[in-house]
């Protein structure tokens, strides 16, 4: 991106976390005092397969600077295959966002299990760095929302 990335506020990243793994992983990251940036706003969902792609599109349209979705590793889903349906959906959504010219680094999908507190902190640090480098979402703060 351009070098003149200006942030007047902290980045806002919406995180959809699966109740059975990543949410517990985030908990573990907290209880084991892992440091990660306070940019994520966690929304607990019963399964990564519960994340409707429109949630992500709507979050971006309403000005979230980034979105991350995290579920159980393939094969470990509490509902057997929810995360595998989600995997196809996310692969396609990421492609769609790329085609429509959205910066690919705004949206991230990953697998974090309940025992991977360290991985959770690492993901949040990395996602925040990537979003920070992109600059604020142009649709946030009433930006280009009223332009068209």
């Amino acid at each position, binding site marked *: 991106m351009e070098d003149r990335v200006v942030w007047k506020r902290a980045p806002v990243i919406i995180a959809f976390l699966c109740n059975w793994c990543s949410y517990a992983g985030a908990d573990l990251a907290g209880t084991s005092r892992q440091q990660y940036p306070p940019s994520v706003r966690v929304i607990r969902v019963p399964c990564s397969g519960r994340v409707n*792609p*429109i949630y992500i599109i709507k979050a971006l349209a309403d000005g979230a600077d980034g979105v991350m979705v995290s579920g159980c590793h393939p094969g470990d889903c509490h509902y057997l295959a929810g995360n595998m349906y989600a995997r*196809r959906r996310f692969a396609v959504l990421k492609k769609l966002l790329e085609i429509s*010219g959205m910066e690919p680094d705004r949206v991230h999908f990953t697998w974090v299990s309940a025992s991977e507190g360290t991985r959770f902190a690492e993901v949040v640090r990395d996602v925040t760095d990537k979003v920070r480098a992109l600059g604020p979402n142009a649709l946030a703060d009433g930006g280009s929302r009223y332009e068209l």
Partner: protein
Amino acid sequence: MSFETQQKELRDLCAALLRDGAVESVIGFGERSDSCCVCPPIAAKREKDAGKLAWNSRCVPNLAPYLPLRGKTAIVAKPCDARAVVNLIVERQIPRESVRIIGMDCAGMTGADGNPLRACAECGERRAPVADDIIANEISSRRELEDTRGEYSAKRFKDEMKKCILCFSCRQACYGCYCQTCFADRVLPNWQPAEPGFGAKMTYHLGRAMHLAGRCVECGACENACASGVDVRYIIRGVTEFIEKEYGFRAGIDIEASPVMQSCSMDDRNVGFWGGDERE
């Protein structure tokens, strides 16, 4: 062979079907009232109505959304319409026994100005992949196509969105948009902001593209219906190509297939995931 001979063959076939009671009605194209109009959809229910069926270069609409009618129905189908019908069967929206597909070999339809429609110029399909009857024409070989995809950029998307007036005609014309209540019409939760800004257009078009992923049959009904000339289809086309490459699925080709987004496999790759494309 030409449109006239195909039209004659079609009328004879439909008259026979209706006379023998093989079908209760035929959904087809009627004569247009004016040279600038497209052929309107009609349903022929009696043998004498078969003479009203038309087949010419302005049979533009996709007739699949008119299914199902009561009783067994025959449908006059261009290759794209036939794919739409097949995908409706695959998605369990209509039973296979309730429909008879009359596949019309198609060289492409034209606009009011006589030029080929954009979707037809990009289409290599010449014969319905699945059909009960084929009304043949010698143009039945598949055509090689040039790449008309263009660049994928934020500017292109914004420029297309600028033209959109959120009238939802593209949704109404699409065979795949059969939900009773579209997410764009929902009040609780209210996905679609009331004010027609970029956010609203992005939510609608990206949401719709997501819903048509792996289901679009490239009939072009959406862009033909658009009064503002928005190229609504290019983002969906990109996704369709991705799905074809990644999951080897094309909508409406195989009547036994299971819908690609309602299936999953342990062998799928983590395409575009954090930490790379590694297989778990």
